[in-house]
């Protein structure tokens, strides 16, 4: 039983990391219809920025998060204006390709500025082990789980109740109609990128504290794709849930079956689920009219 609990708890932790990054994907896709292939690199870059901030200013965890979020939002805004805005109106695959190019640039930039050595990054969190219900956790892992819950609730509240959130949902539903009722769609796109960067910063900070701060962190973004797909590309809650499911299944399959199953468990799960539900668990069915 202890073994099962251990596996499930660590699965939830890594699943929370997938989920947070997946929410970033989903938010941008939902609002702009573009898949941001540079999300993993954004997570990595904001994590490194947080690392530098922590080194210069010696902040503890919450102030560090509070400082990193506005910086990453500014970064997201800058990237959107420079790379995505000029591509307004162009076919989607061209914009997606631009994000791929952006990913290459960000990867090289990270190594150029910070070097390629991995760093130890505690993000100002305590490192003594905490035991809950007989299962040991690092505080960083508990923060990761908490962050996922907070972000999901915050984004849901934002989308449901705030003016900008409603406007975002309108733009996601039908851009032309939203324009007609007075929603500034380009502002909404910028906002989507900014919020997504903020989430990426939280994800990056916590991922780095939990696992590693190294220039191959961007691969985590790719591994979070299945989480976004599983939940449905335009469902925020689905992305979070998808991440948790994949994390737990990966951990359980590696623990009980082994043979490197962790690497492909997530992929096998999405293939099976997509055969039954082609738009993910909670994704909205695209209705095509001829």
């Amino acid at each position, binding site marked *: 039983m202890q073994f099962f609990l251990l596996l499930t708890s660590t699965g939830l932790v890594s699943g929370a990391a997938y989920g947070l990054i997946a929410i970033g994907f989903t938010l941008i896709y939902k609002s702009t219809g573009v898949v941001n292939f540079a999300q993993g690199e954004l997570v990595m870059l904001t994590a490194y920025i947080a690392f530098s901030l922590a080194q210069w200013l010696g902040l503890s965890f919450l102030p560090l998060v509070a400082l990193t979020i506005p910086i990453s939002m500014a970064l997201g805004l800058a990237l959107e204006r420079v790379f995505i805005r000029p591509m307004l109106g162009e076919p989607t695959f061209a914009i997606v390709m631009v994000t791929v190019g952006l990913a290459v640039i960000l990867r090289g930039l990270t190594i150029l500025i910070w*070097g390629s050595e991995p760093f130890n990054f505690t993000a100002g969190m305590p490192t003594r082990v905490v035991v809950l219900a007989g299962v040991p956790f690092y505080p960083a892992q508990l923060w990761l789980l908490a962050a996922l819950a907070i972000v999901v609730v915050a984004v849901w509240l934002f989308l449901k109740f705030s003016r900008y959130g409603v406007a975002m949902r309108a733009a996601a539903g039908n851009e032309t109609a939203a324009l007609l009722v007075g929603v500034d769609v380009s502002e909404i796109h910028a906002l989507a990128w900014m919020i997504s960067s903020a989430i990426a910063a939280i994800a990056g900070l916590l991922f780095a504290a939990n696992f*590693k701060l190294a220039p191959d962190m961007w691969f985590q973004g790719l591994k979070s794709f299945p989480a976004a797909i599983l939940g449905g590309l335009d469902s925020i809650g689905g992305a979070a849930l998808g991440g948790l499911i994949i994390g737990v299944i990966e951990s359980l399959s590696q623990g009980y079956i082994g*043979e490197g199953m962790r690497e492909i468990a997530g992929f096998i799960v999405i293939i099976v689920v997509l055969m039954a539900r082609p738009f993910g668990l909670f994704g909205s069915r695209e209705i095509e009219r001829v």
Partner: protein
Amino acid sequence: MRTLLASCAALLLVSGAARAADPGVTDTEVEVGDVNIMTGPAAFVGKGFSLGSKIAAAEINAAGGINGRKLVVITEDDGYIPSRSFQALTKLIEVDHIFALNGTSGTANVMAMMPLITDNNLPTVVTEAPASLVYNPVRPSVFTFGANYADAFYAQLKYIHDHGAKDGAWGIIRQDDDFGKEVEQGFDRASKEFGAKMGPALRFKKGTSNFSAELAQMKEAGVTVLANGGIFAGAANILAEARKLDMDIQSAGVWSEGIPASARLSAPAGYDFMVADYVSLVGPANDKFKAMAKQFVSDDELANISRYTYVSYIGLKTLAHAMSLCGKDLTRACTIEKLRGLKDFDTGGLSAPVSFDNPRQLSGTAVGVYQYDVKAKAFKALTGFQQY
């Protein structure tokens, strides 16, 4: 008409075959190539290695070069990708006309370059990835310096056993490639010989950072001696996970953990982990090396000196020594012959003396065991260089 076509065809097919007798040698210079990991996440390995080549070349040139010829090192980047290693070596051979090869990057990379090395009879010293695949079968122009991972792990596990292993099972976590296979071979040899209780033998994919499932299995099985086959951040993650599960373990690791960056990553877990290496990590030889290197490199670069610097330095020094024995008439064949006859070449204490005079053209198989003292934040030597 037919003869015209036939001769055109023959010309086309032969045109690639013409080749100079021995490229890379002039009266004033001799060119040695390095294929290094200069970009990508493993770049700090390649940069450390490249530093060793630079220091060796600078030291040799300051002392007059190789029989009056200046030693020039040409570096190409492969980003740790085997197909790029192949392309990089092609460029070094065809465009830069190198005489010999010192930097060979990782195991998969050197294997990808092997067909080119054998085709061109390129004198090559492999110091960075001395896997048994490199010298089994032995290639005439390839000289390997370095212990294999199996011996390195056997040495550490033997030390642990000889000095009182904790009661409990022995477990191993290793990568799912040829490097990991070798680690497991050393582990199997030790666990059989010392009659240890066998714990889980687990594999993971390169780049994994989440070892929670593996360590949970280890804890379940009551493992107290762990063969940690992870590298860099992976090894640190394994130790951190073990600490979280409050495991009391003695850990044997890969020599990649002997560089300052890795030690910084693994230290917070609080284990006095061990490594075994075929070059010296601490000691008077290292201090002497750093003092010598100071004249040739900047302070920033001085801080990057690691075991990769030492292996590259040793590799280039042995190559240069063999070349200098050839005198004025410097050819690849002569260099290879001199390398084959190399016996007890002194590396200033950085490793055991280098001797390639054996059928496998293999040296440096003696390893020393080191342990990281968490309180002192430094490595200390447990044994000298010994053969296993």
